[in-house]
């Protein structure tokens, strides 16, 4: 049995902020070390969800692309969407999931710009779905310590 990473980061953060920082002679050093402590708390929150939020988001984007593919008029974009919709995450490490996420979000930008140029009820619904996903993406990334 050993303390898990969340517990370690918690303890280290508190240690830096309440013991190390106040013992430093200069205000600049104190601020620097306090920010390191805050950063550890942010890393702790992000580490816990790092894989799950990417897996969830990548799946949501693939579903969105699957829905969008038949509605898109540009042949090249339709092909890219179909390919992305049937793709899978290459592995479960954060870097592998992030790499897939970057490619999918790049494609989302192109899809959104395209849909904005279309004028049909279907396109408007797709536009709404994209905005919904964008809002969801900020919920997945939200850190509890942020002011907003």
């Amino acid at each position, binding site marked *: 049995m050993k303390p898990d990473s969340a517990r370690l980061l918690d303890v280290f953060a508190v240690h830096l902020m309440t013991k190390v920082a106040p013992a430093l002679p200069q205000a600049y050093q104190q601020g620097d070390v306090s920010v390191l402590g805050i950063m550890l708390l*942010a890393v702790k929150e992000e580490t816990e969800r790092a894989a799950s939020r990417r897996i969830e988001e990548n799946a949501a984007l693939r579903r969105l692309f699957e829905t969008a593919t038949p509605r898109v008029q540009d042949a090249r974009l339709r092909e890219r969407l179909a390919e992305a919709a049937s793709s899978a995450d290459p592995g479960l490490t954060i870097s592998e999931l992030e790499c897939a996420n970057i490619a999918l979000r790049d494609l989302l930008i192109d899809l959104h710009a395209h849909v904005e140029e279309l004028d049909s009820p279907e396109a408007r619904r797709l536009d709404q779905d994209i905005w919904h996903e964008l809002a969801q993406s900020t919920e997945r990334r939200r850190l509890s310590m942020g002011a907003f």
Partner: protein
Amino acid sequence: MDTLEARLCDYIAGKLRHGSGVRVENLDRIFGGASRETYRFVLHWKEDEADHSRRLILRRDPPSSLIETERAIEFAAYRAFHGSAVPVPEALWLEEDPQYLEHPFFVMEELSGFEASPQAITQPPYSDHAAKLAQQKWRILGEIAKADPSKLGLEGVMKSVAPGECWQRELARWEGVLDEDELCPQPVIRAAIRWLRRNPPPPAQKISVVHADYRTGNFLYDAEGTIHGILDWEMAHLGDPLEDLAWSINPVWRWARDERCGGLAPREDAIRIWEQSCGLRADPDALRWWEVFSSVKGQGIWVSGAQEFSEGTNQDVILGLSSWIMGNAQDRAALLALGRLPS
């Protein structure tokens, strides 16, 4: 010894024509400056057979910063507003030759004994004076908007812009920063940029000095709720005064973690105080455009800092923190301004 203290002392000794026995003491770096290294120090000298001392600030360019800014413009802005209804410290010497302190710098008066922290303002005793601080904060911003750049002598220093071109210039600038520096796709901000281009604002009511980082955290205040100095003019430029108003009410500065702008006042109060102070109108549609824009600009700043940090050109911990904490909050602020954030 060739310390920063000694080199600064040599420089100032060359500037004080009637002074002698110049000493620089207690040079101490202030935490938090992401675009300049900021130090406080005490200058001692003899003049007319009397001893003098003054608390001063050194603002020195770092090797790389959160945003590439023009120190000469910042210096000129301090000089222009000193002694006006906009409280600022007195700017003393600007030096762009790196031979003295390795990087360009300027020296200004320290307004000492005051608080600047955006977190402290939400706590007693300062929070007891939130309404008073809000009244001053947006009144002073109105004074900046009202000021005539030509009378301030800033027209030759800051690039001129026509009222109908303010939005295009600023949007192009920050879109360029995102194009150059983003480390990962920004679908929210890219959608915001497209919206901004499809829905241009009306021409600016007047060309004003835009502070460009006017927010809680960039002014000095005391425990009685008085604002003593407006700081951090490094992004100042000429433009639409609504740019500053929109930036000041951006949700990412909700330090009290409630609806109050800058942790101080509701949005409508901030706008009303500003309008009364400057005599301009914050047209809702125009202000909305600048609010969406302010999140594009904010994301440009966070992305730029993240890029510097990742590339190792500036690994100030504040850059690491701001890219983590502020980036997603800025996306959310953009969604809110666009009416796309579910309540």
